[in-house]
């Protein structure tokens, strides 16, 4: 029934309840990105959640604690004493065959570094949210240096553009992680996503259940009737074999992620890919390469610039080389690639430039790197326009925009 909410002012369209036709078996709500992440963990029926607070992630684990307390999520929730312990507990529970979820940020992730390696090389599937912030000088704002610096720990990494994408990606990440037995990290931006309230479609539980079946404990799982030892010393010949298997699995992950993202679209009505190409064609003179929330602002800016396209990277590890090459294939050889980096890893190029060069080895495309928004510096449309301008006017190979 249509409900008139205005006294005499704004002309109203149909209110929310009737507009849910866009995505059947969903409800639309306005919620913060961190709450969307927690909601995703609930929908995925995470069974074990070790937690330790850190800004700007804290409201994820706080919300999960509420959900567990309210009986809306049947999970074991444990407050740990540090992130190192959080990840150690996560590892133990995953060995036991539980579906594990937790969240961290910045220093928390750095502190867990040792255990990140262990979880990956034990081949334990789980999904962890990281709300990106840098380290020193002390800073709590949006920056991807923390997760990008962990790219070599062996985890799969996704970066979400919106709260909706974070929620949807967590669901996909569980499917992928449990299929290849590799843990996955879903990264969202501090504040611009974590604390931003926006429209999110929440799928029905049974819709998710059909897409993500209950976790199947593998042969590695703890079984009290079949005692095994974990974590013992591995001699060189076995270590070699384990890494070889890991390498094979990781090589399958890119294609599998693409397949799962496509399936997700069919299932939920919101298709995704490992990358997304916008306005990339033979006439395109410049392609901006982005990850995370800056992508939205770039979309808005390039509406006014028909010669500028966008390549958004959603999957970062394994780096989607095939998808990137496919997406850029239509470009003329005069086209220019400009990469937006909200990270600094202590090298000349930022993390994305390094990976892009690897993916496009042998290509004639000119590639320029642009540091922008590091440490949470706001990236308004005008900053994107400056990048566009610079990309066309004698750019350096690596450029800093808006250095204050």
């Amino acid at each position, binding site marked *: 029934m249509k409900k*008139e*909410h*205005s*006294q*005499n*002012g*704004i*002309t*109203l*369209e*149909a*209110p*929310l309840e009737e*507009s849910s036709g866009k995505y059947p078996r969903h409800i*639309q709500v*306005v919620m*913060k990105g961190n709450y969307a992440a927690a909601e995703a963990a609930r929908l995925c029926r995470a069974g074990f959640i070790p937690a330790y607070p850190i800004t700007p992630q804290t409201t994820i684990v706080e919300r999960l604690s509420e959900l567990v307390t309210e009986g809306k999520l049947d999970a074991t929730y444990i407050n740990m004493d540090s992130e190192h312990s959080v990840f150690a507990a996560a590892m133990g529970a995953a060995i036991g065959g539980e579906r594990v979820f937790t969240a961290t940020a910045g220093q928390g992730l750095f502190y867990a570094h040792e255990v990140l390696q262990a979880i990956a090389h034990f081949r334990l599937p789980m999904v962890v949210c990281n709300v990106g912030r840098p380290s020193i*000088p*002390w800073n*709590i704002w949006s920056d991807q240096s923390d997760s990008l610096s962990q790219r070599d720990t062996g985890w799969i990494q996704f970066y979400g553009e919106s709260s909706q994408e974070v929620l949807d990606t967590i669901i996909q990440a569980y499917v992928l992680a449990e299929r290849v037995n590799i843990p996955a990290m879903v990264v969202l931006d501090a*504040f*611009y*996503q974590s*604390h*931003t*309230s*926006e*429209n999110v479609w929440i799928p029905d539980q049974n819709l998710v259940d059909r897409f993500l079946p209950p976790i199947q404990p593998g042969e590695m799982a703890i079984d009290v009737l079949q005692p095994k030892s974990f974590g013992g010393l591995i001699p060189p010949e076995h270590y070699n074999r384990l890494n070889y298997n890991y390498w094979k699995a990781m090589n399958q992950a890119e294609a599998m992620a693409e397949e799962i993202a496509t399936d997700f679209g069919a299932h939920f009505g919101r298709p995704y890919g490992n990358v997304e190409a916008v306005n990339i064609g033979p006439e395109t*003179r*410049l392609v901006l390469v982005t990850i995370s*929330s*800056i992508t*939205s*602002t770039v*979309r*808005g800016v390039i*509406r*006014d*610039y*028909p*010669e*500028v396209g966008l390549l958004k990277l959603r999957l970062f590890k394994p780096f989607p080389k095939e998808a990137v090459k496919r997406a850029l294939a239509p470009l003329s050889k005069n086209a220019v690639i400009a990469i937006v980096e909200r990270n600094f890893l202590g090298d000349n190029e930022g993390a994305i430039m390094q990976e892009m060069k690897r993916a496009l080895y042998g290509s004639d495309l000119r590639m320029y790197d642009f540091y922008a928004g590091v440490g949470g510096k*706001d*990236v*308004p*449309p*005008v*900053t994107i*326009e*400056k990048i*566009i*301008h610079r990309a*066309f006017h004698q750019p350096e190979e690596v450029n800093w925009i808006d250095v204050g």
Partner: protein
Amino acid sequence: MLEIRGHARGGQGMVTAFEILAKIFSKLGNFQVQAFPAFGVERTGAPIQAFLRVAKKEILNRSNIYHPHLIVVFDESLLEQVPVFNGLQKDGAVLINTERPVTDFSAPDRVVYTVPATRISLGLGLGSKSLPIVNAAMIGALARIFEVSLELVQETIRDNVPAKPEANMEAAARALRSVNGANGRNRFLIEALHAQPQKNHRKVEDLHFDVPLEINGMETPFWSEPSSKNKTGNWRLITPSYSDRPAPCNSNCPAGTDVRGFVRLTSEQKFDEALELISRHNPFPSICGRVCPNFCEQNCNRNELDRGLNIGAIERFLGDRAPEGKIKPAPVRHKERVAVIGSGPAGLTAALRLCEKGYSTTVFEALPQAGGMMRAGIPKFRLPDEVLDREIRRIEQKGVKIELNKKVAVEELSSRFDLVIAATGSHIGSPLRIEGEEFARDGINFLREFKLDHDADGLHQGQEVAIIGGGNTAVDVARTVLRLGGIPTIYYRRTIKEMPAIAQEVKEAQMEGVKIEFLTAPVALAPAGPSQVALTLTEMKMGEPDESGRRRPIPVPGTERAILVGRVIKAIGQRADLFAFGPKPVEPQQGYIELESGASVFCAGDMAWGGTVAEAIGSGNKVAEEVDAYLRGKPYHEKETLPEVVLPKDINYAYYLPMARHYNKLHHPRNLTGDFNEVARGLDEQEVVAETARCLHCGECFNCGNCINFCPDAAIHVDEEGRLRIDYDYCKGCGICVQECPCSAMQFQLTEAVL
């Protein structure tokens, strides 16, 4: 797309308000919304911003809002600090929480709305005066501007506020009705809400760059630079300050002595200043350092840690080292002459104070020596004569005249003096009220006669003496008897816990060999031969508490027994000597006394209140103030006692180490007979200074530096005079300094207005 920017202080609920607004818009008409905050280093009171975008289509901008259509100001004081209006679009609107009229904020190309959201919120108990939570009221005001139904607003508020849903809903309703400014719909805002993004088809060559406007307003320092430009003091909701709270030693001293002060000066080895400080309230430091029950020590907060300070010994040390030099007499500045009857501590103190104030004062003493009870009632082994002489001499040198052997009444002085103070004390022994009363001697008389006349009342070696009572007189009598060769036994009807005598004196008496039988009371006395008295005693037990709160002793039937002793001395209390007032009965009380003759008579000392030297000194100080006011025709008010004495709960004991107390050494020869040497010996300078180091400095800053060490904002410094000071430009009011102050020398109060 509509863009709204909000400015508030952390804690006012703006982020929640913007999220609620986003929800309201999303329910209104399938709008896409985006609400987010921009925090600094987030903290209550800090200036923060929030942003809200509302659009019909997907919102393709995730950066801060620099050119809003509407600016919402939750806290008016931010107008002084943050360039809140920066970037407002032409014809854009502002909504300000203020009591001021709209015209105060008017400007061309700007539509102004105001709402008294603070008043509305506080009226409904939302937040505090220093931090009103105005978010629901601000939502209500915005609902009025966008003409959204109150029902939808209230429903969304109810479902989303963390507490007090009813009050918040009501705040929104009241604010909706209280918006000042343009009536009718704001076409500019409504159009922005529905506007579709336009494709502009710009060429790269057309690019021009507007530098984003500064909307933060907070000069955030670079991490490696001094943070001095970041004046964060205005975030403060509570304001710490150094305070001077009374210490229990000070507030407990009946004489009013600044005990904490003289202990500190002594610790700094400023002995003369310390003595001077004592003398302002107490002219008898040597005496009080020996005979006072040390009210100051009784509630010393150090008792909770190990043992209270030996304040008596410190005071005694200071008094004893007072220079013997000539004291300059105080000049007489007033014509009124004052007479004081009685040269006890009350009379002498009153006389000294009035002399210092410029009155000619004369003290009349019935006995041949001055000092009152200090002279006649306290044995030499507790208070040597020369100590007493010296302190009285100082009073005389100041200009007080003492006339000895003058037992005078008020009447005979009235003609010669403008005013008389009666301080004749309580030295008439109370009766036992038992059969054979007349066969008991009076303890206070015994002490006086022995002290002044060396009359031992025929007491001889080996004589058994029964002493009835439990106060200092009983103990002093017993110890005197012991020194005269008698065998004293004290009979007290209660237990040692209830004994009013100074505990240390009781202990010393027992060490010397005085026997004390507790829960024993006399029933009857009878003569038994030429040199003996039959004393019938009964055992007692402790019954129910009486009006004074002490348990009343009651006789145990069938326990009576008779003993033969050489002498019975009663010492069960004294009553006032009222002869000075003449034959008509007078009820003595502190201060002015109404007499039939109309003479100006005041009263002080034991006869008014108290019963110790310190109380008598306090009484003397007080009566002098009252007399001065009376003579000068000024109103007299008793000084109010200071509030909030520092108690053990206020002390942070973790910051103090246990330190052994320095006890007075005691003189206890094997044979006491004939030995009237002082028992308690003083501490030497080194010991005294070491003892003062044990002071906790309750309620007084002693520059320990904890506040500096703990202040996370480096907002505390030491000024040129070496004092700790708070720089309120930077103090954010976290309260850690107050928490970590060891001795409660800091306090905080709510900052009334955040400015």
